[in-house]
């Protein structure tokens, strides 16, 4: 905020003067650090540098939604669920800005589900981060729309009975043009995914597996803890066959539209799915559906990245066409209907 010479390649230049107030040990700290480091890294090359004044973080309500306060950029901490809509208006009015949207699974998928799917379908130039901790944190521990069935919480003492959303499947179904997943324990992976999402023209959705160490501790341990990663994380790489495992001995095939994990030796390398960022959405959907619990090998990285017309560009081109013969004139407007003179 102050006018001292700022070195944007350093994390402190992206850190606001506000005290971070998440619970100690919260996964959000790691995500915040990754975001600050990512901006610092981008600043090292003038071609990728984004300026703090041209960056806006927009959030709704929830623990994750405090995020904008901690970035030394412009920011809006708004109301529950509405951040994709508010950010859409900002992006339409100001296509020159880098607009990020931050929210949790309750904010984005419960109260804000409608705004999320429409922002994705329109392909407005927004980068949307969905912090998925599968629980309501700020309201102190109720189940969320991504909680597993049977979740025992204060509001579901006998276990939750509604099946969860898979955010990646939902985003693919909304025809999002960029969909990715990362997790809060791997800064390098987060930075890499954030950079790709940021560079994507159009709406990007990044699901971040995020640990709530108070109300849902260890939800993703079976997948994202260092010891489990080799066997449980499937790294998606554009153009490469989908393989994983400590011995690189497992892979993914899609049969009759359904993805499944196989032993490479059983099917042969050529039978494995070659991951394509621009594959048919049905393929992205099949990959998303590969893991709908917290015990199965789970794909990470970019599920989908396709070129499609971006909304603000389309809107601006309509305005430019309408102004081809010069800007509007108020007097002409007022006399555009039938007039008479007394």
């Amino acid at each position, binding site marked *: 905020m102050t006018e001292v010479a700022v070195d944007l390649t350093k994390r402190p230049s992206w850190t606001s003067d506000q005290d971070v107030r998440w619970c100690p040990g919260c996964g959000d700290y790691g995500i915040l650090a990754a975001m600050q480091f990512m901006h610092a890294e981008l600043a090292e090359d003038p071609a990728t540098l984004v300026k703090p004044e041209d960056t806006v973080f927009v959030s709704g309500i929830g623990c994750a939604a405090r995020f904008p306060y901690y970035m030394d950029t412009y920011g809006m901490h708004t109301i529950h669920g509405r951040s994709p809509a508010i950010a*859409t208006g900002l992006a339409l009015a100001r296509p020159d800005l880098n607009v990020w949207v931050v929210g949790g699974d309750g904010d984005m998928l419960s109260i804000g589900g409608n705004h999320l799917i429409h922002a994705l379908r329109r392909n407005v130039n927004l980068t949307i981060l969905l912090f998925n901790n599968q629980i309501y944190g700020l309201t102190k521990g109720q189940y969320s729309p991504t909680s597993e069935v049977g979740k025992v919480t204060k509001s579901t003492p006998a276990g939750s009975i509604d099946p969860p959303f898979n955010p990646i499947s939902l985003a693919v179904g909304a025809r999002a043009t960029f969909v990715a997943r990362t997790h809060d324990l791997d800064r390098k992976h987060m930075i890499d995914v954030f950079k790709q999402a940021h560079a994507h023209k159009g709406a990007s959705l990044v699901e971040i597996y995020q640990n709530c160490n108070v109300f849902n501790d260890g939800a993703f341990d079976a997948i994202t803890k260092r010891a489990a990663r080799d066997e449980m994380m499937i790294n998606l790489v554009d153009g490469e066959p989908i393989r994983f495992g400590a011995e690189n001995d497992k892979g993914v095939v899609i049969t009759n539209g359904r993805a499944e994990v196989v032993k490479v030796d059983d099917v042969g390398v050529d039978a494995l799915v070659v991951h394509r960022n621009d594959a048919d959405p049905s393929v992205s959907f099949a990959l998303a559906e590969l893991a709908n619990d917290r015990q199965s090998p789970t794909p990470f990285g970019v599920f989908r990245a396709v070129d499609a017309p971006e909304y603000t560009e389309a809107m601006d081109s309509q305005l430019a066409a309408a102004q081809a013969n010069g800007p509007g004139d108020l007097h002409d407007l*007022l006399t555009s209907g039938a007039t*008479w003179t007394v």
Partner: protein
Amino acid sequence: MQLTGDRFTSTSALVGNDIATLPEFPAEIRAPQGTLAGVSAFQVHISDHDIHTPGDISDVLVAMNPAALKSQLIRLKGGGTILLNSDAFDERNLEKCGYEADPRLDGSLDGYTVHEIAMNKLTVEATADLDVKKRDAERSKNFFALGVVSWMYTRPLEPTIEWVESKFASRPAVVSANVSALKAGHAYGETTEMFANQYVVEAAPAKPGTYTNITGNTATAWGMIAAGQLSGLPVFLGSYPITPASDILHELSRHKNFGVKTFQAEDEIAGAGAALGAAFGGALAFTTTSGPGIALKGETIGLALSMELPLVIIDVQRGGPSTGLPTKTEASDLMMAMYGRHGESPMPVVAANSPSDCFFAAIEACRLALKYRTPVMLLTDGYLATGAEPWRLPDVADLPDISVEFTTAPNATDDEGNPTFLSFMRDEDTLARPWAIPGTPGLEHRLGGLEKADGTGNVSYDPGNHELMTQLREAKVNGIAADIPLVEVDGDGDGDVLLVGWGGTLGSITSAVNRMRDEGMKVDRIHLTHIHPFAANLGDILRSYRRVLVPELNRGQLVRLLRAEFLVDATPLSKVQGLPFTGEEIVNATKALLEVTA
């Protein structure tokens, strides 16, 4: 019928008559024709002098079928003229609207001058030489009726012909059928000896100037475009379609050459939200809706109020509660405009009083929003929105400058002596906070819905600060009272009674007051544009009258505000029928008040 009514109105305006209209149509798109529920009516009042309302009762009723006759006869004066389409008076149609006997035969039209015209048949004959099917030809019968009435009232046909040619340019068969029907109707009036009279309504004496015919929704849209030009800011509309407000969105969408961005959102909440996002980005942002939409936008309006960003919310009021009467007028959202948010959340409320006034009211709402960094509610209603009147166009150069300056440099110094930006350091006069938009280096800041510390704008849970901020927000809005025009009394100032109106009742109240003055009564009148805050002199005016009558198209909302604010014994006059007041209703209520308090 809406289209034919609209053409008659436009032509009348073009020949210089004063006009006032009341379109009335069902909420259903294709309501069953021939039933009472399906009647689409259009009341138009034309005059050679200044008029204020569509008229209490009509001189002529054109009934295209029995249902139209049955539902509208009550609005025809005794001895009035009925033109009815006799082709539509068959047993089935009579039954559909509940006529047990043919009203043409059972004496129920005695006392009226009835002209039966076989409009279907004559229209089909008139279009016989054209390449149109009988069924399609019959659709032109409204233009036949328009031709007959145009002859009766000596309206030229050319403006309508030109309009038809341009409107249906891509469908030449429709053009020729409609034009033939129109001319045939006119010729029918001329050649039959059915009509004893032809009426000539001369141009109304009017102030010199250039006039156009305008509806409230169009005027509102143009007002927002004008406000964009006058403020130098790009206009952004976030909206979701809703009757009767959608035409503002439609009209704005047609004027992209002004750099106007219109966004049809996924719902009402997103419409308001997108507008608020655009406001943060430095746009002149607004959202349009009707009552149900305001209920949904409430939380976003509260956020705008807390963030202290400019946002104009336009409520084209309709009959409520819930879905209510979507196509009928009512002014029952005033309390919601005033108080329909959680927490202590005062915001300015401005109300338009005629179709053309919507233009100026929109500019005024924008002026207040921009200058005071606050959401502002602009109230219009279904009657203003769809009704039309001649409008003497303002000189663009006379419109107010409502430009604002963004903050582009630090406005304070921190403890270490470095320049810094305090996002809630207020202007001493207006109490408005600085508006610094993204893209401005060095002024990066975060706005939120959490309570903010006075000055810095940082999140604050401090008890004293919350009370201070609550009071500051209130004082900021109250301070607007010094920045709006005083209320002017129409009358001598010593009348026996003061009529207080707001919004779309201006025409009804004015014509009632004129009628009472003609009878020798001493009646004064004021009309409020600013409802929150009230004009500074309102209390003194109210207290100077022994009797105050407040006609409103609700159950008495303004009257409660007046009584609460000024402790005056104001009397309500309520009407909630989805229709404007008739002059007679106001006259009778005024006389009754004078009588009981004599």
